[in-house]
């Protein structure tokens, strides 16, 4: 569509405002992490790195980061190992059955996470299961499963069946066909969703909230810090997580680029 100069200018202006709305808060989050005083107040008067130093000495925090890494890694493994076969199953169903199954698998993504969390809590409680990192992994895997299934399923739908048939006509068995034909074509979607699940799981709070035992994850630790009061230490953690997210995205884009080349 040809657009006039004025509409182009209007859209640029609007986009600039919205980007400012998106990024000024992130800037604020980072800026306050370098503030010297404990009380967050504007304008920032003294600058220091003391809150980053404080992070390194905060054992509870470091432990919670370790727990979050464990949970996120386990979630990636579980959602990939279960999600890919789920997507394969969807592909081979047709009509109403496939749509119904897809909708049901998607539910935990649309139902607010705290509902899923408390639903699982009720079941685990009745089964007398002790809450631990394992129960957090269970809950989060259910919540993030739809992401993997939809991403992989979307890719599978674009995949031509003829390719796999050709492979089998040429003498490959089903397993070989899956490994050498199907898997390479869905690889980018598997990697992409794995990265997404990792970051989302690392930041997840509502499900974790209900399923946490004695060991905290990072968001749970931040949550309990927020209850006590806000300090620049939280901003220091925030800055690091933003940085890690950006690095993960760039990594994801790199992988995608080398795949398509």
């Amino acid at each position, binding site marked *: 569509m040809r657009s006039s100069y004025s509409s182009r200018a209007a859209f640029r202006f609007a986009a600039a405002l919205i980007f400012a709305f998106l990024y000024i808060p992130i800037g604020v989050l980072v800026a306050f992490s370098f503030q010297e005083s404990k009380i967050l107040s504007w304008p920032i008067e003294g600058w220091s790195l003391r809150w980053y130093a404080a992070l390194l000495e905060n054992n509870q925090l470091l432990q919670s980061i370790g727990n979050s890494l464990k949970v996120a890694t386990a979630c990636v493994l579980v959602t990939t190992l279960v999600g890919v076969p789920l997507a394969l199953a969807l592909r081979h169903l047709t009509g109403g059955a496939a749509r119904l199954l897809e909708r049901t698998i998607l*539910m935990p993504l649309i139902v*607010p996470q705290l509902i899923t969390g408390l639903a699982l809590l009720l079941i685990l409680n009745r089964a007398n299961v002790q809450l631990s990192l394992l129960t957090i992994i269970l809950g989060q895997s259910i919540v993030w499963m739809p992401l993997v299934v939809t991403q992989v399923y979307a890719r599978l739908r674009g995949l031509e069946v003829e390719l796999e*048939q050709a492979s089998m006509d040429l003498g490959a068995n089903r397993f070989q066909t899956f490994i050498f034909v199907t898997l390479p074509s869905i690889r980018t979607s598997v990697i992409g969703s794995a990265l997404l699940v990792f970051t989302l799981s690392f930041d997840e709070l509502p499900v974790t909230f209900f399923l946490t035992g004695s060991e905290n994850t990072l968001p749970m630790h931040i949550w309990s810090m*927020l209850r006590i009061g806000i300090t620049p230490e939280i901003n220091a953690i*925030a800055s690091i997580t933003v940085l890690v997210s*950006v690095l993960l995205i760039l990594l994801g884009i790199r992988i995608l680029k080398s795949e398509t080349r």
Partner: protein
Amino acid sequence: MPKTRVSRSRLGLAPVTLLCCVGALLYVAAFVLYPYGHVTVFSFWEKDLYSIRPAFILDNYQRISERPLYLRVVMNSLQVAAMVTVVSAVLGYVMAWFLAHHSGRWKNLFFILLIVPLWTSFLLRAYVWKIILGRNGIISAILGNFGVVPEDLGFLLYSDLSIVIALVYIFVPFIAISVYAALEKIPVSLTEASADLGASAAKTFFHVVFPLTVPGLLAGATIVFCLSFGDFITPSLLGGSENIMIANVIISQFGAAFDWPFGSALAVVVLITVLVVVSSTDWMGRKIAGGRDAL
């Protein structure tokens, strides 16, 4: 699978595939239907002073419908979710349009800039508004220079406004990405054809482009509505005692109040709302897409 096409049957009937399908059904039954079903059953149970008993009573639902407090909380949550959805949809659409048509050679950079917030912690993105809108916050410091006293700015934090601002902030990129994906799929030839046939830019937009983006917009808006409706993080960080949302009440039932059946009944209210919203937007989306099957 009677409808399986011939071209697929060779792959379709493999035992591994069958195993996948059975596994999928088991997965859905055990990890999706069972938990949500169990909450529903639990919402009819009875709570004594110290114990919870299986029963079939409607007391929990009666309590929700009879006490004005709970009705107000539900209405407030619906209202906040609706406001968040509308504002995010408008801003997200503008953003997607900019990205698709006006970003020029910086398109990839802008796209990444839109994704970065999505990959950043929900909790921290809500928290930052406490710093911006708070009593010692940036807004009140800036306005303070113009002689506004912090007391006049009480409405900023601990209000529905702060909850809506934070949730919009969290969800705008989400809508933008959904709409952008839809916009990118529209072939240029289509809008050119519309222009060649004499339609104005506005006419082309409303009759050709916009309807094609509706499914993406609806899908994004549905998720935004449902997740805002059931959010407890933002209201408990940024809302005052007047602005509690349904998720906060649910949490308190599972915490201090220790009334799990009542909490479950509130959870069922959320579940039903989500299901109603999802199926109605789904129906709308299919109705709109139905007329355009040719594409």
